[in-house]
């Protein structure tokens, strides 16, 4: 019978203090089945009384080998797996993957498809932040906030269902555009949301922003300096809460972000409260982008007409032989991408979501690496937790906002 390894303190002796080896401090497992760790994250804590001396994150419980699996699938089929990475930002993952494929094969996206992509990813950003604000408040014992946030998130999931038929795993964005044009109900649904949502954010802020219990748990807790954040590769709202003005939507505009007027909220404190304020403000800014994109949305095709990479519209299949051949070839063989490698990144709700994609001239990716922001975020957790109480560690975990599917891939 194969021996199963048991990890003892001796294996981790470089990571814990000497006092742990002598038994002076206590080693405690937080997770993997602990609701406050937001998934299956295991934290090995070294505690001195109630103070965290060392925190060793143990990840990989959700590892599903997505990168390996994608190597065996054509580009179109591999895209479906990206939904499963960061399950709170499914549309954003599709966008990151499709932009990488489009860069690799040099494919243009029509303007209407670009606007649709922007609207949906920004709505998804709001939905992701809503889950964050709900679970974060729940960790801090504000139960009703969770219900409110999920009520609004339901609106957004309904919009995703209107356009794609799926609430979460949409795969609506495709290489070269989007799956199909949006139905007529789409615009009213989004406009209703735009009209309703600012008041709801005001409600959240009235409940939380000046709440003395929340302030107690957030102000000055989990301070992350600018230098540490950069060294640990932190991006997104966390980096912006530590005083670095870096947002890929502003710095390297993609999908026509340069034509929309929005602010990038930046705070310098770097604590839980700064991260809270940055994300709440981001929801308002995302809503501004959605509204502008909806107002400016041009008419026209939603898929590139390059038939070597993008299947022809359904309506042509009955009348055109070439269209039928293209359709058949694309869905059986896939398209060939050139030999070469690219790196392309988008701003996900958690930071820089990068895709390293290498083609070998065939229809399947030779190597694809998803640079997921949550991986770096949990990497810095051991640094941030040091010296805080266990209760504060829970507040920090809520505040840094990671998704385990995103970390383990």
């Amino acid at each position, binding site marked *: 019978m194969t021996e199963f390894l048991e990890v003892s303190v001796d294996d981790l002796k470089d990571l814990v203090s000497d006092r742990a080896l002598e038994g002076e401090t206590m080693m405690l497992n937080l997770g993997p089945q602990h609701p406050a760790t937001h998934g299956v994250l295991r934290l090995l804590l070294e505690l001195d009384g109630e103070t965290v001396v060392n925190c060793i994150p143990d990840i990989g419980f959700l590892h599903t080998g997505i990168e*390996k699996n994608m190597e065996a699938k054509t580009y179109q089929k591999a895209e479906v797996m990206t939904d499963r990475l960061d399950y709170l930002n499914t549309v954003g993952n599709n966008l990151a993957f499709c932009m990488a494929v489009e860069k690799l094969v040099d494919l243009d996206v029509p303007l209407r498809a670009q606007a649709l992509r922007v609207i949906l990813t920004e709505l998804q950003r709001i939905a992701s932040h809503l889950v964050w604000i709900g679970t974060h408040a729940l960790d801090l014992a504000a139960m009703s906030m969770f219900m409110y946030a999920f009520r609004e998130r339901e609106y957004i999931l309904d919009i995703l269902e209107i356009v794609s038929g799926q609430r979460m795993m949409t795969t609506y964005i495709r290489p070269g555009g989007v799956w199909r044009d949006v139905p007529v109900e789409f615009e009213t649904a989004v406009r209703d949301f735009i009209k309703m949502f600012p008041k709801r954010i005001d409600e959240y802020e009235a409940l939380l922003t000046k709440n003395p219990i929340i302030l107690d748990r957030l102000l000055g807790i989990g301070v992350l300096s600018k230098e540490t954040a950069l060294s640990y*590769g932190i991006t997104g709202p966390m980096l912006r809460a530590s005083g670095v003005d870096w947002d890929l939507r502003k710095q390297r505009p993609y999908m026509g972000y340069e034509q929309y007027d929005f602010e990038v909220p930046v705070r310098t404190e770097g604590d839980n409260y700064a991260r809270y304020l940055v994300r709440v403000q981001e929801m308002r800014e995302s809503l501004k982008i959605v509204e502008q994109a909806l107002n400016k949305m041009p008419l026209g095709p939603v898929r590139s007409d390059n038939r070597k990479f993008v299947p022809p519209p359904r309506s042509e299949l009955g009348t055109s032989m070439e269209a039928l051949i293209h359709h058949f070839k694309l869905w059986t063989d896939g398209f060939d991408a050139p030999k070469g490698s690219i790196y392309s990144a988008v701003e996900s709700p958690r930071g820089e979501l990068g895709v390293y994609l290498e083609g070998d001239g065939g229809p399947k990716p030779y190597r694809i690496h998803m640079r997921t922001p949550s991986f770096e975020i949990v990497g810095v957790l051991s640094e941030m937790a040091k010296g805080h109480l266990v209760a504060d560690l829970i507040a920090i975990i809520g505040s840094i906002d990671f998704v385990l599917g995103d970390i383990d891939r």
Partner: protein
Amino acid sequence: MDKKLEEIVKSLQTDFDGKVEEFRDEAHVFVHPEQIVEVITSLRDKHKFELLSALTAVDYWPQGSISPKIPASSPKGDEEQGQEARFHVIYQLTSLSKNLSIQIRVPIAAIKPTIASVSAVFASANWREREIWDMFGIHVDGHPDLRRILMPADWEGHPLRKDYPLGYEEPQFTFNIDEIDLRKPYAKE
């Protein structure tokens, strides 16, 4: 290629003698494994690339890579002289102040693949290098804590290698692990 990036690439070439490839406006600079810590440090301090965006690897088994062969001056001597590089370790760096990106690629041989750790330069490299060790079996020299990160600690083999099979295997349960292990050709390093 961007003009500012071109200057940086040129200065890298004079300092470290790297071959450059361009694809879709991206600069990929090839450097020798011994120089990697120096290159990354100089990129961070001299050229202001503050962020290590991605650190990953590619396996080119069995055909070897398109990159130059391992030069004869390799310290490991005859063992790997003239051998095709099996792996590329890839460092994607971002400069926030200059808004630039650069990619450093390090070709590594198939026998005892080893690379020096850059976790002293960028803290984020710590976990990413553990991932490389876990997924590709590339040993990282000077790493403070080289354990598996995604796979279980007692896992055999390195899943992202190209000679590691993808699926179609018999599922193993606790009562028949040994029995099925005997029939498995791979997963022995």
